[in-house]
């Protein structure tokens, strides 16, 4: 496409030799500067997970490490105390996992079928249905906090992971439906028409035509939903408490309400545990992550 025409021209290979070198140095110099700026927090935090507390207190986070030990990782995972329970970050990590995985799967499954139905089976008021579902993408969480608290209470899901799964599934379906609908619109209608003439129904077309075309958008949905739900904070804080909270709330409770001795090294390791799963997903599926951004943001 347009990429090919752009490919043909190399801005760094024009002009005099000296100008070329200067241009190259500027470009790579700036890239390196920003790369260091972006990576430095990650580097600083990882380094401090290995340093003894008194060294951090004495020298701050940014200094050359002396003694290194991996014991703080263990303490962060299963040792430190939060609100009377001394099990480290692991129970909250498990909570987030138990919340994120079902909500991701459910919202993606619904989104794929919804997107297919809305893009390939036109019916009266279908754009209104799509519009209503899409509004959920933009609705600020603050507008739904009190109703959710009430509804989850009535359903017996107050202060449970199941309640958060419900909340994130309902909210997530808006995103996945939007993604999938915009993706399936590009599938030629003739393909569907031909299948219908052959007598194939809704589900058979879904299985035979739509699903085989779906892996890219499925990956986009899963990555988007997983990182979004894993990183969510407000619902978790409002709708759960104590040992039922997700990891983001636990991080804030642990590092924010520090009275007395701070445990920077253990806190740093806990922060890494909170960041690791979405970071891992991003690193293995980066291409799809970007695609989700572009399709979710611009459309």
């Amino acid at each position, binding site marked *: 496409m*347009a990429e090919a*025409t*752009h490919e043909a*021209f*190399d*801005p*760094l290979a024009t002009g005099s030799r000296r100008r070329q070198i200067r*241009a190259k140095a500027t*470009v790579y110099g700036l*890239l390196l500067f*920003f790369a260091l700026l*972006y990576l430095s*927090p*990650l580097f600083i*935090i990882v380094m401090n997970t290995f340093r003894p507390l008194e060294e*951090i207190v004495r020298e*701050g*986070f*940014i*200094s050359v490490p002396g003694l290194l030990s991996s014991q703080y990782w263990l303490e962060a995972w299963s040792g430190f105390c939060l609100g009377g329970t001394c099990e480290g970050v692991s129970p909250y990590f498990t909570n987030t996992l138990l919340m994120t995985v079902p909500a991701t799967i459910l919202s993606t499954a*619904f989104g794929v*079928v919804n997107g297919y139905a809305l893009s390939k089976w036109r*019916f009266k008021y279908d754009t209104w*249905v799509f519009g*209503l*579902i899409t509004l*959920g993408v933009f*609705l*600020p*969480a603050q*507008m739904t*906090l009190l*109703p959710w608290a009430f509804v989850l209470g009535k359903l017996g899901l107050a202060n449970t992971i199941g309640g958060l799964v419900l909340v994130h599934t*309902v909210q997530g*379906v808006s995103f996945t*439906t939007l993604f999938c609908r915009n993706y399936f619109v590009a599938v030629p209608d003739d393909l569907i028409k031909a299948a219908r003439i052959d007598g194939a*129904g*809704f589900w058979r077309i879904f299985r035979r035509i739509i699903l085989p075309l779906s892996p890219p958008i499925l990956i986009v949905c899963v990555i988007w939903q997983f990182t979004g739900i*894993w990183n*969510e904070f407000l619902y978790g804080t*409002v709708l759960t408490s104590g040992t039922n909270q997700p990891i*983001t709330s636990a*991080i*804030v409770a642990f*590092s924010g309400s520090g009275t007395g001795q701070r445990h*920077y090294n253990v*806190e740093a390791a806990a*922060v890494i545990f*909170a*960041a690791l799963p*979405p*970071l891992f997903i*991003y690193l293995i599926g*980066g291409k799809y*992550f*970007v695609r989700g*951004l*572009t399709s979710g*943001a*611009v459309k």
Partner: protein
Amino acid sequence: MPENTTPTRASWWQKLTDWTPQLVLLPTLFAAAIYVVLFSLWTLWISVSQSTLLPNMAYGGFGEYAALWQSKRWTVAYQNLFLFGTLYVLGSLFVGTLLAILIDQRVKFEAMWRTIFLYPLAISFIVTGTVWRWIFHPQTGVEKALNDVGWLSAQFDWITDRDMALYVVVFTGIWHASGFAMALILAGLRSVDGDLVKAAQIDGASMPRIYRRVVLPTIWPIFVAVTVVLLQFAIKTYDLVVALTQGGPGVATTVPAIVVYDLMFERGQIAQGAAAAVMILVGLAIVLIPYVLWTGWRARKEGQNHG
């Protein structure tokens, strides 16, 4: 009589099959109707009710809106959001554009650069805020490091300074979001016709000038889209401030979403909290409705041009 029942059952079955798409959408439609419509109206009603610590659904008028706009905390939060939003969007667009242009120079290891600039987006605001709080805090971060290497008079305490703390939030926000701007703008740059650039080059224009005058103006719709998304992020900003400054020092970095939470869950003023939530919705609507109308108008215009 089988001859009779078969057709009716078939037509009944046929009807069900005809309605499959609608039936499939029913659960989501039901959930969306509750979530989007009912919940919004519910919160709207709470904002004009007599609720205080507990919900009291009797009508109480618009007094809470008046009280909200008269409270110092809210007006400060609102001004903070204005300043934060402006600088955050402009900063992210600037850095994002710069990075996109740099990567567009057919650099080596493109995938690596992209991965580095975009990874903050995969990390939660809570983690981002916590980490940068340590770096910005004078006792643990940059100031401490500068003092320890011998620059004893070095001072960098923006995060505890009422006048400067908001800029710490702006910086951290830009760190988090500029990769997003970069990804979208880079996609835009890649869609620009190479001949256009070549023509400008033959005319003797320098690269920075070509970008400023030729390339960037052609992808302006992308800038509008990125701006709208970033403004949305800005209006919803909550976690980042909680982890970074908790709204402080004082109210220096308090934003509307923090006021909502405080009113609803800390101060037991549910109605006023709901009023503040409605104001956030209004802010989003002010950004989004013109954008949606504008994209619709452009799509129609394009359709006419092509037809």
